[in-house]
């Protein structure tokens, strides 16, 4: 982590910085996917469904998948509202990975970024939902790491413990 990268650790027992992460730095993902979409609210459903469909290969409860969808919704909404200030032509990358004991979702934008605490957008005067999004992400995931750099964008990494079946041949494979 570089010195000018701003990491916000949110307490409450659920959120930590990269230190103590559920996924060791050298861990190899068992499976991954990435989708890129423009910063338009109509794409929220796609982001939710793509991540949920990816993780449906695991033996998750329906309620867990639903909660993951809400967490994805919050992260992508933040990118649209705060990263790109509702400009409809910014790229948002939504990635998901499966590690031996952990699910990971990364939502990244190339928008404004921020210094210190994320702030509500100026303008429309009704942002009652602001702040609740982070609370929901923290409630539904085991770890939420927010990294933002003014002028360069924001990356939200969310992780959750999962019962991931061991691959039949962990070191084999051609991919």
């Amino acid at each position, binding site marked *: 982590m570089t010195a000018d990268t701003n990491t916000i650790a949110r307490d409450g027992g659920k959120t930590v910085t990269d230190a103590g992460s559920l996924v060791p730095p050298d861990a190899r993902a068992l499976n991954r996917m990435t989708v890129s979409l423009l910063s338009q*609210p*109509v794409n*929220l*459903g796609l982001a*939710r469904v793509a991540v949920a469909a990816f993780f449906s290969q695991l033996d998750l409860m329906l*309620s867990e998948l*639903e*909660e993951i*969808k*809400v967490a994805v*919704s*919050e992260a992508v*909404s933040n990118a*649209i*509202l705060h990263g790109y200030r509702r400009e409809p032509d910014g790229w948002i990358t939504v990635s998901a990975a499966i590690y031996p004991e952990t699910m990971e979702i990364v939502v990244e934008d190339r928008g404004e970024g921020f210094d210190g605490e994320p702030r509500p957008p100026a303008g429309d005067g*009704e*942002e*009652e*939902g*602001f702040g*609740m*999004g982070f*609370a*929901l992400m923290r*409630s539904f995931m085991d770890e939420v790491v927010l990294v933002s750099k003014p002028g360069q964008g924001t990356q939200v990494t969310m992780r959750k413990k999962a019962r991931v079946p061991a691959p039949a041949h962990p070191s084999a494979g051609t991919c």
Partner: protein
Amino acid sequence: MILQLEENGSSLVARLAGEIDLQVADRLRSALDGALGEKPVRHLVLDLSGVSLIDSSGLGVILGRYRHLLQRGGRISLVGMRPLVKRVMELSGLLTIMREYASEGEALAGPE
């Protein structure tokens, strides 16, 4: 999102269905404000039985309407929350300020 509105005296029943997120928040806000603004409605009954997902954008719309109604001595009652929706509402604290009823009828008959 599907929204159906029905007036019932000083109450307004709003039946919502679908996913309540940023994509539909503005439309939902306008529709509810339009209906609440026309008549002296003081009680908004939100029937969420058709709602499969709600996030903070949707919560923001509900909380905003709650504040407007509170200013005129009104309230919001909730009906038909599925487990996920109920959990999101609980975590956000909305269930501490809005009462849940088993049916629209009970909500309409509920205490002032």
